[in-house]
């Protein structure tokens, strides 16, 4: 019996290992390939991204994890020689940071309202939020475009930041979480004479710190990698975020793309490593769809 258990645990472990390697592969490839020189990249992937200039090209594609010679040339090109990458990086920060901060702020207040007061009207509104949250971007694209045009913010950062702040996704998640807070906590605070704003800031927010953090991570990652919105709402190339620019890198600069992707990954990586526990914990209590 005991032997059997050890055996099944071994199989489970191996299965997890196989999955984990497969899942991790693109991350590792991105990082290691960023340390290859353009010549090495070309010889490895030349078959696929046919570049016209000369140099050795391997007959078959060569997926390599470890560079022949570690080279920082891609980083030097991207970060020092050409300022446009850093500029786009800064654009990304200017777009995403306000969205994350204000979306979570607006959402936490709204979620408190959905948690504290129930009723037909409010559950109707909540259902509406869920619907909005589920709309594919292509459905909201036209409305978004129209509003930006009316408000005169088309082709400015605000055309992305403002709709981002009011996206209903985090309202939904936070409401799920807040409804798990024991009602007695709120009741007793009320008996003690606390006002709604006090209950919200002193009891509700501290209770869902991990949820706030995990939602901030999710929102950050979502907007950090946006491509469609800036392409349509922000046609001024100088203002576009690095995520768009990276996606348009042409075949001659694969190595550079990997290097810049690695640099671009750093904030997400730090957020993850720092906040993974919150991510797990924050979700653990979010519960059901309807609440």
């Amino acid at each position: 019996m005991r032997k059997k258990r050890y055996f099944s645990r071994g199989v489970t472990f191996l299965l997890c290992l196989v999955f984990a390697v497969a899942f991790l592969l693109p991350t590792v490839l991105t990082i290691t390939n960023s340390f290859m020189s353009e010549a090495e990249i070309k010889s490895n992937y030349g078959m696929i991204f046919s570049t016209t200039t000369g140099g050795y090209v391997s007959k078959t594609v060569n997926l390599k994890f470890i560079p022949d010679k570690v080279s920082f040339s891609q980083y030097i090109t991207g970060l020092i020689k050409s300022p446009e990458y850093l500029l786009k990086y800064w654009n990304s920060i200017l777009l995403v940071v306000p969205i994350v901060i204000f979306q979570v702020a607006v959402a936490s207040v709204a979620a408190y309202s959905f948690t504290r007061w129930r009723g037909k009207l409010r559950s109707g509104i909540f259902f509406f939020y869920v619907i909005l949250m589920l709309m594919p971007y292509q459905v909201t694209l036209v409305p978004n475009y129209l509003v930006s045009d009316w408000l005169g913010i088309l082709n400015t950062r605000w055309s992305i930041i403002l709709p981002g702040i009011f996206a209903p996704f985090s309202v939904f998640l936070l409401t799920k979480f807040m409804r798990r807070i024991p009602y007695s906590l709120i009741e007793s605070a009320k008996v003690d004479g606390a006002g709604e704003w006090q209950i919200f800031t002193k009891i509700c927010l501290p209770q869902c710190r991990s949820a706030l953090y995990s939602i901030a991570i999710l929102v950050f990652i979502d907007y950090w990698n946006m491509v469609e919105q800036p392409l349509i709402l922000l046609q001024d190339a100088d203002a576009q975020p690095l995520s768009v620019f990276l996606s348009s890198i042409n075949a001659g600069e694969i190595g550079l793309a990997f290097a810049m992707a690695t640099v671009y990954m750093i904030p997400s990586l730090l957020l993850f490593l720092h906040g993974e526990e919150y991510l797990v914990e924050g979700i653990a209590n979010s519960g059901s769809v309807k609440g």
Partner: protein
Amino acid sequence: MVTQMSKRKAKSRDRWNDFLQSLCFLSPSLLGVAVFFIVPFGVVVYYSLIDGVGSRSFVGLDNFTRLFQNSAFLMAGRNTLRFSVLAVPLAVVLAIVLALLLEARIPLKSQFRTFFLSPMMVPVASVVLIWQVLFNFNGTVNEFLRLFGADKIDWFQSEYSLIVVLILFLWKNLGYNMILFMAGLANIPRELLEVADVEGASEWYKFFAIKLRYLSPTVLFVTILSLINSFKVFREVYLLTGDYPYEELYMLQHFMNNTFKSLDYQKLSAAAVVMAVVMVVLIALLFKAEDWFGKDVEG
């Protein structure tokens, strides 16, 4: 008598107070949502019912009947439906499997969890490059298949393209779904499982009779999230294959994107309205389903 009256008055005043306070808290969000989503969506509905932005004459459901005769729209709808029907259940079931695997007492558990989550961080551009290296006609996967004497497959230009996108979708989303299920599993009362152990219940019985019941709210939650994400995979598909991919991959998002570029607002608005209606029906069904399944484990 008087006290009763004043009590009732106080009660209605309380309710009025509650209403005002709830409105105060909700208003920033509601205002933004109204300006950026609701009002413009109303305009989209209006556009779907008129003749053209220039003439603005009301044409009833003409735009819709034309839309349903449009072969590109029908194909895109079919493809999107097929992809979601395949991708969403797979994302749910495989995530449960992963979560159950990680429930076992194995070493490196938290590292595995991190690894499964890692796809969320990889920038889209990099994902697209790697998928090209892997699935190009001369790519790694075909080279690998050749070792076993198999024929090369043109992954992006054949019915296999759906599989490539499916793999991408699962790779990206399974980790997070798994976390949600792990959380759900952790919320199951331990005593219940212990009793089942004492009674000598099999693992299968424990899973279907206990775990799955308690997971049912999570299943619905993950279903909704996966549905959202199944629409988002368009970003990668678009960057991989452009405006007009292989027929099987031509999704509603391609249709809307291309219609947007050709400035046909009537067609686009009608398509957006149809999509919205389908979503409303779908979500209402999911909510009903949660009511149905979640009844006996609420609390």
